[in-house]
């Protein structure tokens, strides 16, 4: 994956370039809004990581300029401003996802990978499949092998989100944001309990577990055989 990081803090940016390099992604760096805009306009990147507060031209203006110029590269906004209204402003300006600083690298990586997939993958399938687990989004039916699984509506949405991003790490915050639409951090890790309930429904009694915990990052639906 090719990424562009527009961030004025040299240390933070170099840390990201290095960390992304370690997991096999190539990242370029721009130190201000104007340089970043010029590089991003090539359209050769899979995902853009843009800081909000930049010298010369602020992040939201870069995004706005790109979107008016017809560049649809997914954008992850990074910002020290993490309140809901800041997030709303960021997404309205044309950003695709928003991550407040300070962040965990695993969180950033998970979000970047989901964003890049959004671009290439067929976006709206009606049937999700992972191993022998099937989820039909139209009839709301879930089955593993021949066995029908009955889920609560919220469990269904949770599984739907996990399966949509099968093979990718999905963090707890991503689940909270996308399945529950909450942007705050519950003090207790309520998501873990929901996952373990879901796990007991889809994995219990099957030799091959599909719902995996990725340590220090989140969860992943993965066909173990692959």
């Amino acid at each position: 994956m090719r990424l562009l990081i527009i961030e004025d803090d040299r240390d933070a940016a170099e840390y990201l370039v290095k960390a992304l390099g370690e997991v096999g992604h190539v990242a370029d760096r721009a130190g201000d809004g104007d340089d970043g805009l010029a590089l991003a306009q090539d359209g050769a990147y899979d995902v853009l990581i843009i800081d909000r507060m930049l010298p010369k031209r602020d992040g939201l203006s870069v995004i706005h300029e790109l979107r008016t110029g017809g560049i649809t590269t997914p954008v992850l906004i990074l910002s020290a401003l993490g309140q809901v209204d800041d997030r709303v402003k960021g997404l309205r300006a044309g950003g695709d996802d928003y991550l407040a600083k300070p962040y965990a690298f695993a969180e950033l990586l998970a979000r970047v990978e989901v964003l890049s997939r959004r671009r290439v993958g067929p976006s709206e399938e009606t049937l999700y499949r992972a191993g022998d687990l099937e989820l039909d989004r139209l009839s709301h039916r879930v089955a593993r092998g021949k066995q029908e699984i009955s889920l609560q509506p919220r469990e269904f949405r949770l599984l739907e989100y996990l399966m949509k991003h099968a093979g990718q790490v999905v963090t707890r915050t991503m689940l909270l944001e996308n399945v529950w639409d909450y942007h705050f951090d519950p003090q207790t890790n309520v998501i873990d309990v929901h996952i373990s309930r879901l796990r007991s429904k889809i994995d219990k009694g099957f030799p091959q577990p599909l719902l995996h915990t990725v340590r220090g990052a989140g969860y992943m639906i993965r066909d173990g055989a692959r």
Partner: protein
Amino acid sequence: MTALGKLLKTTAFRLTLVYLAVFALFAAFLLGYFALNTRRLITEQITSTIDAEILGLAEQYNQGGIRRLVYVIEVRARRPGSSLYIVTTATGEGLAGNVAALAPGILDKPGWLETPYRRLEEAPGNEHNALARVSQLPGGFRLLVGRDLDERERLFEIVATAGRWSVAIVVVLGIAGGVFVSRRVLNRIDAMTHTTEKIMAGDLSGRLPVRGSGDEIDRLALNLNAMLERIEALMHGLREVSDNVAHDLKTPLTRLRNRCEEALRTAKSDADYRGALEATISESEDLIRTFNALLMIARAESGEARDYMTEFDAAEIVQDVSELYEPLAEDKGLTLRVDAHPAPVHANREMVSQALANLLDNAIKYAAAGKPREDGGRPEIVLSAQSKDNRVMLAVGDGGPGIPAADRLRVIERFVRLEQSRSEPGSGLGLSLVSAVAQLHGGELRLEDNAPGLKAVIDLPRAVPTGAT
């Protein structure tokens, strides 16, 4: 600036001057008008008297010829008074009268005239002004009848003097009044300025003097005092927060640092280092969480989040939040019961959700530690939403140990954690945030006795009243 200079510059004094000028002009105009009219009136009176007298004398002449006229005039001329008479022949030879010196040629032109004259019995140089009429009688005789004008002049003089005095008195009294009023105002304003200077210098406890008369300066002072009250409260809050931040962020930072140092000193294997690093990361995450909570409280208190309010049913939020926490509660052996009635409200959905989540999080944390129910059932947490009299109440009630009545107000403050809860994870900001969110919407957080346990109620107005803080 000198005291006098200051006084002269006051609005009150300047207004006094303007009023004074207008008033003096008006008085002068009035008196002038009065004097002129009086003068005209007197003149009219004199002319009509003279006319009548001439008519009468002409009658005498017609009836009794010049002899009779001379006789009558001599009688009249001897009377003391202000009338003057002359009868002459056509050549100007005086026949009778009481006037000594007259300008020559006056008697040749019949008609009205104003002329200086001297009475016969008076010494030369003692001249007066008179209004007189000259008429020619048949036979060439000339008759002059006049009236002394002294009376008229004296009256005019009296009025003019009165006018000058009254204007002078008005000006003197006006300036004195202006100085008096301006000094009163100036004294009060000076007192206010003095206080504001003290406040600007950093002493926020100063208040503007209020005299209790309820006038406009008092009202201004009261409003400014209310503003100062608010500023002082905010500053106090800010100081408190920074003290707390210093304490509650420095404590975990110290722990963090100690842990790193200890790892550097004692760790022998990679696994030791890994363990220390992981502990460090988790510690820093707690710090970030505390920091976020503080920022969110600040955001709620600043009132900015009011721009993001929507209309929704609070019952839905109660359902959603309880659904999020239900598995956790069940894991802890608790029953979550929802008693939600439709309660439409205009509020910041995200913030109200978070507030409710905080309350529920607390309830789950503490209810599990409560006594089991007497009927042997699982401890229960009740979430409710109801709407009553334009207010919306969201409540979380548990059967846990509750909070002693004396501590209920205190726990809402930032970073306050009761002894019993110190062992539980948490920042001590949860209830502060809930309270800040309630206040943002013009409502309040109430902690009540659930007998046993705690009932936390978020009491909101159906829509945020304008001007709520």
